[in-house]
């Protein structure tokens, strides 16, 4: 197959440097989108070549959080793909209601839009008080923002529309305070959320989950890493626990996918089968 070789070599060197020096392993990320982000990062750091970028981080370790933030893609929306939230509301939450305590793991929470959406869903189902949500990401910059729960006011219209289309019965503005060009999510939504750094590549299972939501994260991983993470989810979920992935994700190339049975193909909601 055709290659544009110098840049590919430089990217390999950069990935290798991050792994050897900082223990951050991007070698099993899907190459095409990783390449785009490494290029953008080089531009952001005013490097002519990607090999300059490698040397820059190696000699300035304080830049690492910004490098991770640049390689991470914290792009999200509240109630993104509304039918999925409707399915969670109608099909999944009623079944979780039978547990005395509900553990939910949201992996790859980005700036937190999705975890606040989830908190609202749980409140409206009357399950919030006995739920515990672990919102994790490997991007500390994004996690700090997620914890603040502050979003741009210009996005509120889209979020409200999504919320309504996802079966919301109130007004989304009941859950935030608008100030100038920002909206701040209500503090009460945070009570049962724990934000934590967790790297899906190298960190292990930390809770027994009833529901795992990990949307549009596995798309950035190659087959091998996707399989590794699905195995991690399978190990974390209780028998019959639920997994929800992104709307257009495909897990057919993962051996661990056999641990999961689709209950809603459109919304990509699965149940963990008994081993």
């Amino acid at each position, binding site marked *: *197959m055709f290659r544009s070789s110098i840049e590919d070599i430089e990217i390999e060197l950069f990935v290798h440097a991050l792994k050897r020096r900082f223990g951050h392993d991007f070698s099993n990320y899907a190459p095409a989108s990783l390449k785009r982000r490494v290029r953008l990062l080089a531009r952001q750091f005013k490097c002519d070549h990607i090999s300059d970028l490698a040397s820059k981080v190696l000699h300035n370790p304080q830049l690492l959080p910004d490098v991770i933030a640049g390689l991470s893609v914290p792009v999200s929306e509240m109630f993104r793909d509304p039918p999925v939230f409707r399915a969670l509301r109608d099909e999944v939450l009623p079944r979780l209601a039978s547990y005395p305590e509900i553990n939910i793991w949201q992996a790859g929470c980005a700036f937190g839009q999705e975890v606040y959406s989830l908190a609202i869903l749980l409140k409206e189902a009357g399950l919030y008080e006995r739920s515990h949500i672990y919102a994790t990401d490997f991007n500390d910059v994004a996690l700090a923002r997620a914890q603040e729960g502050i979003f741009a006011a210009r996005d509120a219209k889209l979020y409200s529309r999504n919320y309504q289309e996802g079966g919301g019965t109130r007004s989304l503005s009941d859950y935030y305070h608008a100030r100038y060009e920002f909206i701040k999510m209500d503090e009460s939504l945070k009570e049962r959320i724990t934000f934590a750094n967790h790297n899906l590549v190298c960190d292990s299972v930390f809770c027994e989950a009833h529901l795992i939501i990990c949307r549009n994260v596995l798309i950035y991983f190659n087959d091998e890493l996707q399989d590794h993470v699905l195995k991690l989810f399978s190990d974390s979920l209780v028998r019959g626990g639920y997994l929800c992935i992104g709307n257009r994700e495909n897990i057919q190339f993962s051996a661990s996918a056999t641990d999961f049975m689709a209950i809603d193909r459109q919304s990509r909601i699965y149940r963990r089968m008994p081993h």
Partner: protein
Amino acid sequence: MDSPRPTCIVIGASAGGIGALRILLSRMDPRLCAMIVIVSHTGSTDMRNFCDVLAEQSALPIEEACERTRPQPGHVYVAPSGYHLLFEPDGRFGFSVDSKIGFSRPSIDVLFESAAEAFGPTLAAIVLTGANSDGAAGLLRVRELGGLAIVQDPDDAEIDTMPRAALELAGADHCLDLRSMATLVNSLCGPRDESEDPLR
């Protein structure tokens, strides 16, 4: 030596795109030996209806691109809404939800650039009607890596902004109306005439 036959054709379309695509696809040889991959900005959230509309006019099978799968020659794939569609180096589809580029996700540039890197000189890229400049940078990358650049004649385009932007930044090997474009693609990627095959 002649330039190699394209094995993959990427097409970018925006405003006015559905009409142009219907004309183009309706004239494609059903025995086409290349795969066709389309990014079209439509603003619709479900491209499966869009595929159905295109399929009415076309003899080629048309479906939404599916993550991680390998596209097949003679098939037409459409990028789903809300995701960038990329070619991985191994020729399979990759998706991303990276930020919109110039208000668009999927972005034509993202598809073109990744396809250029996966296919090099065996890629053909087509820029059709549209009211923005998506595709111009991607077309430049296609040409840098030896691929074939085809742009809809601005006078033939419903909205000429996108073809003009592509011509200005990248230029083109061919600048054609839709009918001539279909003829060209059929001659480049139609079934091989065995009498012309030097190996036989």
